[in-house]
């Protein structure tokens, strides 16, 4: 096994193009996960059992099955129902949905850490439901959630290579195609690992800072 720096220089632009797409996917899926997760969390808190039960069951199911299979399901099964999604969109929806079930738990824990007395005090001060949420609950519930949400952002970033299985040309897929056309696996695969590791390590440092700044959410 020998390491060829010239080859590394040749493939780096291709890999960086893949990395750009990887970051874009992470960002888009994170937005989906953040919004959908909030919807799940609110739906699960609903006093209407016909809303909270099915949503709860669905969240359990999505959490208990592999993301890869869910991606296949979206990419291969939905077209039979007439919903044809481009690979990138299918990937973003799949990842966003999968991680929404995790962020829903974060939202739930964050809302539950607000002491009950705050709800009662808001009621005693005659605040409306909207005022209670906007001025009392959310300002207290959100800061402790931030590190936990950022944690899932990093997790999502690391899961993006799965999208190569549904033909999205992200970092891993670029590396694979380079490797397959040149019969050299060592450099592309190692470079992918190094790129992921570098970004993860930087994000972990940022996460520590967030935890320091906003505190940790205890379950």
């Amino acid at each position, binding site marked *: 096994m020998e390491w060829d720096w010239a080859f590394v220089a040749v493939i780096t632009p291709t890999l960086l193009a893949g990395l750009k797409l990887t970051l874009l996917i992470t960002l888009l899926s994170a937005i989906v996960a953040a919004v959908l997760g909030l919807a799940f969390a609110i739906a699960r808190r609903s006093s209407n059992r016909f809303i909270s039960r099915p949503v709860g069951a669905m969240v359990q199911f999505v959490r208990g099955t592999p993301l890869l*299979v869910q991606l296949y399901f979206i990419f291969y099964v939905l077209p039979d129902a007439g919903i044809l999604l481009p690979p990138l969109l299918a990937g973003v929806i799949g990842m966003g949905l999968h991680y929404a079930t995790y962020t829903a738990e974060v939202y739930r824990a964050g809302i539950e850490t607000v002491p009950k007395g705050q709800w009662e005090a808001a009621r005693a001060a005659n605040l409306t439901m909207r005022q209670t949420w906007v001025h009392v609950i959310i300002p207290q519930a959100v800061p402790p959630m931030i590190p936990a949400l950022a944690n899932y952002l990093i997790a999502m970033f690391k899961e993006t290579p*799965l999208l190569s299985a549904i033909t999205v040309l992200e970092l891993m897929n670029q590396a694979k195609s380079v490797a397959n056309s040149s019969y050299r696996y060592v450099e592309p695969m190692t470079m992918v690992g190094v790129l992921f*590791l570098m970004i*993860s390590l930087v994000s972990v440092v940022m996460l520590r800072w967030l935890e320091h700044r906003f505190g940790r959410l205890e379950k």
Partner: protein
Amino acid sequence: MGDWSGYLTLILQGALVTVQLTVLGCAMALVVAFVAGLGRIAPFAPLRWVASVYIEFFRGTSIFVQLFWVYFVLPFAGVTLSPLMAGVLALGLNMGAYGAEVVRGAILSVPKDQYEASIAVNLTRFQRMRHVILPQALPLMLPTFGNNAIELLKATAVVSLISLSDMTFQAQVVRAQTGSTMIPFATILLLYFAMATAIAAGMRALENRVTRGLDGVR
């Protein structure tokens, strides 16, 4: 469509491989987690560094990248692994890194006076770990270990991409042969969910067993 029982057999064979991977992967992850977790709090500094580097590396890159690295790059270094061995190795090392942090956290959360008391009654380091610290730390680890086991089960789907014929791989085979997409994928989704539910139930039973007799302690 036609021969459904044949295709179902195929998927069930895949399910067996998935179970095998999960069990072997969990076993390896458990061993690695304790070695690395104890290494991280060892009194000997180089040991701590090695454990930290291992943990950060495997937590910092995805299982997918690690698996491909083990399967495609190691052969160039003269280490050729069968897909099953590569899968177990990658899954075990990956989840072991997460588990190591759990082990470390649980051991550190045992109150300090427990250490002092065991020194006072003249226990050796090994006796202290075996009879005082671990029995108290283990119940703290179990719930997270349960979640990790389910994560590992879900991660096994990735090995289908290095041509190991697990459940996901077999579903793809069925899809290619029949052109039906809904049935194979819905079947394996349900099977994965059933397995995850089984792991969760098993871990709850184990938790009850391990925490028995600890009521007065905490």
